[in-house]
């Protein structure tokens, strides 16, 4: 067994121990995980972004334009101060504003128009009818200007059933994913760590 396997196995078991109950072993692993992941993030961010997109263009290419976002970025640190926090709203506003601007056409095209067009199917087929009824009744469920009574109540109720089918199918698929992950970890413990050759 290699050192790698031993280290990985110890931490794997520490996390699994949470299933029995919260314990010092898990708590230590939890805090190490938080620390290591923050450290990883810090290094990747500085190397991949600050160095390559701010420092190098500034030093080698004399690209003065990058000073603007860098200064705006530094303004974020105002958050750490008790009473100057509002300064950080300036870079935040740029992020949020530009983010909102690009999202409007993107959402409209990809989530609304494209999905509408894909739902306009000939009604001779069963799937054409089901898709239309499903989309319309689900939209009815999420219509808030009217109480769900009478004919509208029936429509919204139909929507609920479609939603439940969707959630059920999702549940099934998710079980599949989670089980795969567990099998992966168990294979590691059984094959690599304990050396039981299957």
């Amino acid at each position, binding site marked *: 067994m290699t050192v790698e396997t031993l280290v990985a196995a110890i931490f794997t078991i520490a996390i699994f121990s949470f*299933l*029995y109950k919260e314990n010092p072993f898990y708590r230590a692993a939890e805090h190490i995980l938080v620390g290591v*992941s923050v450290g*990883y*993030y810090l290094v*990747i*961010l500085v*190397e*991949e*972004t600050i*160095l*390559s*997109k701010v420092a*190098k*263009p500034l030093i080698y290419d004399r690209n003065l334009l990058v000073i603007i976002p860098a200064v705006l970025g530094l303004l974020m640190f105002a958050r750490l101060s008790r009473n100057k926090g509002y300064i950080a709203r300036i870079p935040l506003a740029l992020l949020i504003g530009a*983010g909102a601007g*690009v*999202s409007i*056409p*993107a*959402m409209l*095209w*990809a*989530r609304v128009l*494209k*999905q509408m*067009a*894909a739902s306009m199917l000939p009604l001779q087929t069963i799937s054409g009818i089901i898709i239309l009824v499903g989309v319309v009744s689900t939209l009815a469920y999420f219509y808030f200007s009217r109480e769900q009574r009478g004919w509208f109540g029936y429509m919204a109720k139909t929507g609920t059933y479609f939603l439940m089918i*969707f959630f059920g*199918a*999702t549940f099934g*698929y*998710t*079980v*599949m*994913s*989670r*089980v*795969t*992950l*567990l*099998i*992966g*970890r*168990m*294979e590691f413990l*059984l094959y690599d760590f304990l050396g*039981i050759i*299957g």
Partner: protein
Amino acid sequence: MDLSRLDRRVIFVLMGLAVIIPILFNITTDVEITRDTLDIYNEIEDLESGEFVMISFDFEASSYPEMYPLALATLNHLFKKNLKVIGLALFSEGTAIGYTLLSEVAGRYGKQYGADYIYLGFRPQYVSAILGMGESIIKVFPEDYLKRPVEEYSEFSGLSGYDDLPLVVSIADGSMPIHWADYANARYQQKVAVACAAVMVTAFKPYFESGQLIGPAAGIKGAAEYEKLLKQRGIAHRRLFAQSTTHVFIIVMVIVANLAAFRGRRR
């Protein structure tokens, strides 16, 4: 014994056994190939050797066990077809994993870094990264993961935007393919093929049905199907038996719980 109030630790132990015992038997099962997996396979199969293809490692370290067989199968296909592979990551944790996987598989096919493939590394803020690459890939990634200017690699220095990429493949455990669809496909009509965690299938399905995304090869079954198409049976095939038994175990648990609750009510 009141089965409807079973201690959850008992369930945990049973669940553990339901996974461990079948693994010990090491039985390999066969799979039927589905249309979804065939879609992504054919899309890659139809590319000409020497064409560029971008592969984005859009997953976190946590879903490594599920994503590993999928990434392996797709990478095997890309290198087998002699495509020029451009790797990148839109999740920070995918960065190191993507680089490790890419180097590992490229090595098996005797591919050279810089000539046959490059790894661009990671960019945060995926929306602006995806949109930015539509304008210029080199502007978003002036340097690769190894800190060398991308322009120094003669094979890749001519890259502009998505026009040069017949296909982007997103290996994803979360909703990143939706962002690829919402931004790269919506704005630049970029073709995006997806290999994803099983959990995402129902969420992505409308995008596949409407043609905004291609595929998906999903989960361990998708990986096994892909292995079968490539005629390289591997890790995904091996895991399918334990997968089946555990699904059955959960279904049995649900039935037992319902029967117990029903009996409790009648009393």
